[in-house]
């Protein structure tokens, strides 16, 4: 998975998404084409602020392999201030999660490609 992960490092580390100048919309993850304007759109990369609010979440008991040591973990659907949405892990006590809660981006480990493989980093969220 090395080149596949490497290709998206900037977008994962830094929450770089897409902005269509034509219709003033923000997207995350980044897109090649604006879904509203298609080839009429002017899509460019944009650094998102990293602040947002929780729309929905789940406390996952039976989750992905990379996160097994932290189960149950929380994954949330978050609406960033710019309007783009992201699904990401939330580092928070389960009792504290509330709909609409303000959260911000944090740089964390997502796993590794085995003991001798590369380490995956990316953006998780924490309560503000």
């Amino acid at each position: 998975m090395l080149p596949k992960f490497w290709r998206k490092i900037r977008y994962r580390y830094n929450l770089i998404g897409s902005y269509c100048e034509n219709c003033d919309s923000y997207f995350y993850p980044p897109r090649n084409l604006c879904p509203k304007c298609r080839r009429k759109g002017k899509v460019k990369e944009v650094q998102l602020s990293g602040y947002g609010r929780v729309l929905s979440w789940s406390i996952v008991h039976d989750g992905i392999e990379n996160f097994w040591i932290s189960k149950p973990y929380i994954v949330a659907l978050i609406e960033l201030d710019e309007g783009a949405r992201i699904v990401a892990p939330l580092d928070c006590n389960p009792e504290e999660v509330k709909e609409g809660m303000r959260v911000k981006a944090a740089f964390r480990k997502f796993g590794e490609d085995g003991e001798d493989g590369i380490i995956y980093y990316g953006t998780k969220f924490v309560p503000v």
Partner: protein
Amino acid sequence: MVGVVSYGTYIPKYRIKVEEIARIWGENAEVIKKGLGIEQKSVPSWDEDTSTIAVESAREALRRANIDPKKIGAVFVGSESHPYAVKPTGTIVAEALGIGNNYFCADLEFACKAGTAAMQICYAMVKAGMIEYGIAIGADISQSRPGDPLEYTASAGSACFIIGKDCIAEIEGTYSFTSDTPDFWRREGQPYPSHGGRFTGQPAYFRHIIEATKGLLNNLGLKPSDFAYAVFHQPNGKFPMRVAKILGFTKDQIKQGLVVPYIGNTYSGSSLIGFASILDVAKPGDRILLTSFGSGAGSDAFSFIITDKIESFERNPTVFEKIMKCEYVDYGLYVKLRKKIRFG
């Protein structure tokens, strides 16, 4: 006027108390607390490592500095727990800050003084006109053998300093005292460090800190009373107090920078987080002494003078606020988080 333009710190939110560790190993917590001068230490979460805490402290420093990341010309990360033995932490930090591709970079190792060594390198590069701004980070997620005395103190934390002109704390001078002294080490491939017991005291910690500090004061023609604050490397709560006394600094001068009782020894972050805590309250004109110590062995001494610029600098949240904001874990969770359990 080259010095610290901005600073940021990161301390993980979990803590474990001395009482909890002593409970498991059948030791007397009160004796240990008194002997080490420490109450608790910080514990990183399962998904934190030296890269992640370095990034968090650097992002804070960069945000407070309000400068274009592309102007950063160098990134040096000092640690003894770099996630990779080969592949620099510095490039991960630089990528996560959006610095671009035009920067000098290498990872540093000199036990607990790798962060101050990074500062010296950035200082030199800025002075030489090679770069406009340099990032120096001291960060560690230190590991300790279960049941070893180091388990009470080995903790996690990071401090980042952006060095440049137009600073909030000018570097008046820096001086290093270094020798080949094997007081504390870790061989390649070994999970836990080894140390020389009491040998780590006088021939190592004290000798180097004293010589480096004296050397600096000599060069600059200064005496301890010229300083508002002093901060030394903090492997425990006792050593810095003793070395301060030997050198002629008072308890009041070192109080603000003494963070080890609450977060433990953050190794490469140790003296630097203490220094950040002083910057949180320092006033223009204050002179600050910083002397780190790294096993193997060496000490870097600095004299800083606070400038007027600190008045308009965003210093919240402070180091002590971060120290207070914490959650306690028990030994079982601690051992799981620190991956000391062999799985399968």
